[in-house]
């Protein structure tokens, strides 16, 4: 296969990954790495390098649309970015200390978790718990547009959320993904923020988190221009198209199919890592 043909196949796969990633809310990075390593037999370090830059592109590219909806909380996001960027530095550092096989296994587990998390669509109302003193002091409150008008919220359990965000950052730096699923877990489950606030703020944070490890990836030579070019352009194009498509009717079926694909990729990542074929 020549370079042009190879680039075209990578480009087309990346468009698909970006499209499905944005339609299902799972993100493009989490699928593109297994596709590059399992299908195209690309070394995982080049794969996570290309994935990381495409994660920055999709997060920043979609931010304008999210912000306009009025759900994302810039203060909560900024405060938690202290945790995610420090975690990302640790994760990027660990990529040289951890074996390729272990990275593959961790990646597989994260894929399985992401598929599981994508089905957790029912979110009980968190109710009005007593405001967390630390959250109030850190101004981690806000309002969001609800069907009944502006609704106020205050964050809960800030230390737990901060700790989970550090983990999310570490996974992002180690695997070259946005780890949106873990970020949403931290805000939605631990800090009891409204679901829409959690998902949009998470998207906002992904770019900053990824930028923290990108410098280290670049200096290590993980970011290969010939590979990152079709991946970044493809994932970005696919996810921007996906965010403009209104396919509410089929999103449930699509999410199920995509989750099954992710489960299959996750199992194959783990299997190939254990048998030393990755």
């Amino acid at each position: 296969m020549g370079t042009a043909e190879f680039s075209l196949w990578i480009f087309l796969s990346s468009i698909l990954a970006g499209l499905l990633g944005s339609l299902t809310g799972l993100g493009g990075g989490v699928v593109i790495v297994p596709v590059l390593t399992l299908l195209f037999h690309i070394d995982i370090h080049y794969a996570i390098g290309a994935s990381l830059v495409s994660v920055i592109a999709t997060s920043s590219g979609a931010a304008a649309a999210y912000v306009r909806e009025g759900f994302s909380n810039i203060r909560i996001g900024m405060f938690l970015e202290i945790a995610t960027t420090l975690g990302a530095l640790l994760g990027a550092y660990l990529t040289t200390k951890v074996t390729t096989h272990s990275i593959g296994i961790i990646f597989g587990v994260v894929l399985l978790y992401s598929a599981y998390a994508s089905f957790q669509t029912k979110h009980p109302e968190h109710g009005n718990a007593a405001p967390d003193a630390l959250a109030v002091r850190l101004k981690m409150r806000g309002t969001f547009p609800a069907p009944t008008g502006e609704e106020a919220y205050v964050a809960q359990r800030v230390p737990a959320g901060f700790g989970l965000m550090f983990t999310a950052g570490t996974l992002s730096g180690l695997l070259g993904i946005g780890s949106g699923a873990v970020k949403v877990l931290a805000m939605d489950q631990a800090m009891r923020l409204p679901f829409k606030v959690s998902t949009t703020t998470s998207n906002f944070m992904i770019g900053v988190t990824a930028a923290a490890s990108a410098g280290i990836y670049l200096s290590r030579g993980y970011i290969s221009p010939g590979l990152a070019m079709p991946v970044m352009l493809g994932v970005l194009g696919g996810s921007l198209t996906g965010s403009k498509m209104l396919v509410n009717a089929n999103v449930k079926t699509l999410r199920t199919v995509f989750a099954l694909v992710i489960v299959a990729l996750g199992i194959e990542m783990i299997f190939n890592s254990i048998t030393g074929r990755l």
Partner: protein
Amino acid sequence: MQLSDQKLEIAIGRMLQAGVLLAALVVLIGGILYLHASPARPDYAHFHGVSADLRTPTRIVALAAHGDPQALIQLGLLLLIATPIVRVIVAAGGFLLERDHMYFWVSLVVLAVLLYSLWHSQ
């Protein structure tokens, strides 16, 4: 306060979008030049790391100025990496204008971590 927060967020959102589009354009131009030169496909199956000239911002800029296609792609990716960093700077400025000193400092801490990572790559 809420109103100016909203304005700040919209400004940041637009800035991010512009940064990404500019970065994508540079990557696309570099990509077209790269494929036009019909290079041999690099061996991606084994990790060697890209050439040292494509690893640091200063060398990438120097090489891109000479029109090197791979360096142009890396330059676009550098612009992409810079976008969220500029976002944090804009947010820090916004918090300062809102006289929210606590979050001004929070933004500076995040900025310090990001710059440490880039500086580390030099």
